[in-house]
């Protein structure tokens, strides 16, 4: 189980809905950072992912290592949160 999960989202992004829905189906809680309401945190999302897109999901594991998943990508999300 990961230590914590943060998702960067926007109001209009359907893929963000999918990531949240999927995490919810696995009973995983997460912190959501909405870049429409917190535009000042865009830089943070970009620096971590290297991409100008959402969703960006940051999974922090118990050993404090981090995994950054860009987009709705179950092939990467599933192993990252296991």
């Amino acid at each position: 189980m990961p230590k914590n999960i943060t998702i960067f989202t926007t109001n209009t992004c359907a893929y963000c809905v999918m990531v949240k829905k999927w995490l919810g189906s696995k009973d995983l809680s997460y912190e959501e950072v909405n870049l429409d309401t917190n535009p000042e945190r865009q830089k943070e999302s970009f620096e971590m992912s290297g991409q100008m897109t959402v969703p960006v999901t940051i999974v922090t594991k118990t050993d404090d290592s981090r995994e950054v998943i860009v987009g709705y990508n179950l092939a990467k999300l599933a192993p990252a949160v296991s």
Partner: protein
Amino acid sequence: MSTTDTPIVYGAEWCGYCNSLRTFLDSLHVSYDYRNVDDKGIEAEMLAKTDGKYLIPTFQSGDTVTQNPDQEKVKEILGMSADTLAEKKETHDVIIVGAGPAALASAIYTTREDIETVLFEKGVIGGLAAITDWVDNYPGFPEGLAGLDLSEGLRKQAERFGADIRLGEVLGIEKSEDLIKLSTTDGDMYAKAVLIATGSDYKRLGIPGEDTYYGRGVHFCATCDGAFYRDKRLVVVGGGNSAVQEAIFLTRFATKIDLLVRSDKMRASEILQHELDKHAEKITVHYNTTTDEIVGENNSVVKVIGTNTKTNKHVTFETDGVFIFIGLKPNTVFLKKSNVKLDDIGMVTTDNELETSMKGVFAAGDVRNGATMQIASATGEGATAALMMRKYLEDLERTTSL
């Protein structure tokens, strides 16, 4: 099977072989009782059956007790020949490939008539409609509505009647006697009838820089990535409804947008073009302009180079990002090796009843040859396909019961 005949697995949470056995039984769709030897009294119960020998997993079926059996042994004990295993295969009345508007509309109709229905979606529930900012022409919504809200509404309505939407991908399709066999990321599955409603996806330009800067300056989803261009300059490529609609959406963020249209006029609807005129302050339309290269510096996009086809001269547009909406390509790669006939651009061909060249397999929405790429048409076709599948299932039942 009475409860006394239900096989029993004695195991523990920490025991890998026990978990493997349970996974294997699940894959055979065999129901069993799991008894955890760490729970009070269970170890003693097990030892009474194994002459005091402690080894897990211990597997009991009827009078036969075996310890740490391999898969062949398990099948033998359960009396499963290849034939009986085949009977255990996961079979559904209808499997719908995709969960966009056509798929969800169809599922509303099938499930409401008690036709058991499973949908497979590899991307977003709601499909391209879900990532469309605003849908102005879907009947019944006088003010228009957000694509995301329309998708959510369709999903909830389908789930209310019992549609089972699974997040996974269908990889192949073939006929298997009266059934249709689908290979999926969840394993093989069978259906009496199948609806292909995989829709389409945005096409790429295939020009230098497009792949290099994908996600870092080159985008195909304005509702996802537009917010990164607050107070920036943008290029939007395309002259159809999507390009115009999304360019207008992007004016929320960008200060200046160059819209590059290849031909001398737009394909977008009149009403959208009028809407576009209202944004002339921010959006400049460049007709007869091809998009040839996306150029970056220090890992970000700085300009787009195109050609004015009237003067045959290069034109350069300084920009921070590019959004591309140049049309759609059908999502039919998974059908290439199947017997489902496609037309020369990869769309699924059907007859008047929306049935494809493979009996029992139907198609609806953007993926179907002749589609008009409208959400209203997709939901309409989805409903039609549901009624055609119902008729097919009734005929199938009649012939198999003869």
